[in-house]
């Protein structure tokens, strides 16, 4: 598999680029597998890869109802960071960030992981204190974090308007230097290729329409390509977790909401870091192709449509232009939306379900893309050993009943406020 390199590029160039091999096989499903992973997005494919690589479990099928990466993995704003406050989150997010750093090499696929830092602007003393709390927590646990003064921020990001004329003048900022971005599609393809090369079957256009269970144990799934038996089934279908879980009779603490994102036309480099803010609900970065990527908060109403409305686009642009007025003349080129599974405490649902052999990994709210490697790694371990890995144990499904909720932002059980 390790055949991607500059040398390979040149060699193939000399033979008219006709000898590149498929990145993955579009497999036909067999009658049974040891593990079926429902959902061919980042998390599902990463799980399959780590099952094969770390645990030698290759009798695995990843089923996707459409093309792999067609869900949220192909729709996010690609921000990767681990500046989470709570201990329960810190472990997994930090671990995931650590994996990102070496991931292109491991997968032999350039994911364009760009360690360009993520800055969160502070606009008041209260903000600075909150960010200090976060920075201190990270430094204590050994993760690089820093606070910047107003002057430092404006010097680092010349195109940022932090001045007195704006609604919320910048008072300082927080930065995680090792945070960054990656090319979302590349992550899907990289993991798919790697998993496939280890023997995992990737089956596209295969929708799961039913679950076969017997005496409280999973037996397999019914799909648009037939019935497939399995010892273990994992639901890794961000955005549709509730509907797929319902096939097994499960009701989850999830409400699916719309999150939009958009890009401008590509321009020459003008922004070298990811910018977020304590006051503006927007976040901005620039891709390697030159597009300015912008995102903001949820549309605010439940939706599976993957199609948002104009008001949130306007809000997102307003935040962006308030921070970067010189972008006013740039043009919005494309806008799209994903389905955010919002849980009642803002943290994911990972682990076994009341049905034996049936596992869930979903409910990622805003945290999905950045955790792909860490989640896949720990979830694979969970599946391999039939118990939640230490890093994902806090995200158990019954935590709402026991009160062990993990509420990073401190909002109550109304998802649209997260």
């Amino acid at each position: 598999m390790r055949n991607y390199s500059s040398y390979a590029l040149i060699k193939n160039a000399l033979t008219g680029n006709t000898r590149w091999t498929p990145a993955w096989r579009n497999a036909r499903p067999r009658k049974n597998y040891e593990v079926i992973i429902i959902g061919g997005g980042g998390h599902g494919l990463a799980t399959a890869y780590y099952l094969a690589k770390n645990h030698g479990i290759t009798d695995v099928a990843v089923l996707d109802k459409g093309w792999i990466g067609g869900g949220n993995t192909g729709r996010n704003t690609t921000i990767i960071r681990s500046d989470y406050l709570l201990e329960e989150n810190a472990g997994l997010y930090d671990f995931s960030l650590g994996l990102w750093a070496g991931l292109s090499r491991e997968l032999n696929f350039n994911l364009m992981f760009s360690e360009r830092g993520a800055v969160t602007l502070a606009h008041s003393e209260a903000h600075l204190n909150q960010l200090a709390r976060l920075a201190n927590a990270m430094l204590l646990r050994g993760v690089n974090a820093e606070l910047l003064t107003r002057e430092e921020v404006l010097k680092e990001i010349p195109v940022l308007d932090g001045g007195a004329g704006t609604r919320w003048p910048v008072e300082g900022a927080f930065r995680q230097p090792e945070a960054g971005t990656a090319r979302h599609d590349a992550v899907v393809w990289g993991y798919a290729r790697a998993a496939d090369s280890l023997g995992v079957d990737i089956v596209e256009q295969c929708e799961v329409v039913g679950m076969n269970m017997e005496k409280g144990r999973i037996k397999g799934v019914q799909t648009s390509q037939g019935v497939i038996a399995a010892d273990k089934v994992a639901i890794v279908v961000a955005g549709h977790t509730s509907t797929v879980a319902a096939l097994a009779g499960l009701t989850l603490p999830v409400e699916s909401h719309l999150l939009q994102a958009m890009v401008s036309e590509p321009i020459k480099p003008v922004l070298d870091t990811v910018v977020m803010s304590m006051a503006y609900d927007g976040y901005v970065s620039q891709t390697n192709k030159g597009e300015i990527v912008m995102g903001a908060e949820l549309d605010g109403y439940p939706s599976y449509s993957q199609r948002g409305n104009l008001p949130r686009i306007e809000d997102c642009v307003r935040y962006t232009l308030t921070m970067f007025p010189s972008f006013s003349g740039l043009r919005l080129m494309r806008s799209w939306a994903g389905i955010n599974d919002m849980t009642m405490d803002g943290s994911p649902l990972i682990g076994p379900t009341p049905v034996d052999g049936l596992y869930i990994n979903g409910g990622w709210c805003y945290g999905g893309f950045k955790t792909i490697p860490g989640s896949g790694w720990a979830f694979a371990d969970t599946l391999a050993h039939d118990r939640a890995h230490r890093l994902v144990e806090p995200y158990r499904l019954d935590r709402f009943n026991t009160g062990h909720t993990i509420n990073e932002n401190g909002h109550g059980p109304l998802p649209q406020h997260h």
Partner: protein
Amino acid sequence: MQEIRCPWCGPRVQTEFEYYCDDSLLTEVWGSEAVQQNLDRVFLRSNHLGYHQEIWQHTHGCRGWLRVLRHNLTHEIKESQPLGSNPVVDKDGRMQS
């Protein structure tokens, strides 16, 4: 963007409203719930694909509350009903049903 009919103000643009919760949060009779019943109501959602009865508020208008029957894939709105004890009256002061 969605147009929602406020029972008091008529059809208004979605930016005047806020979605609050799913109708399934309302099934309790005060004081009658057992603990697990309460936790299930507060935390679980059917989140099915299809029509939902949703609770919205006309926050940037009359602050009235409405129950909206809306499809969460097509965003089609079938109906909206007034909630609460404020009667809906027409411009001549007559009560609407």
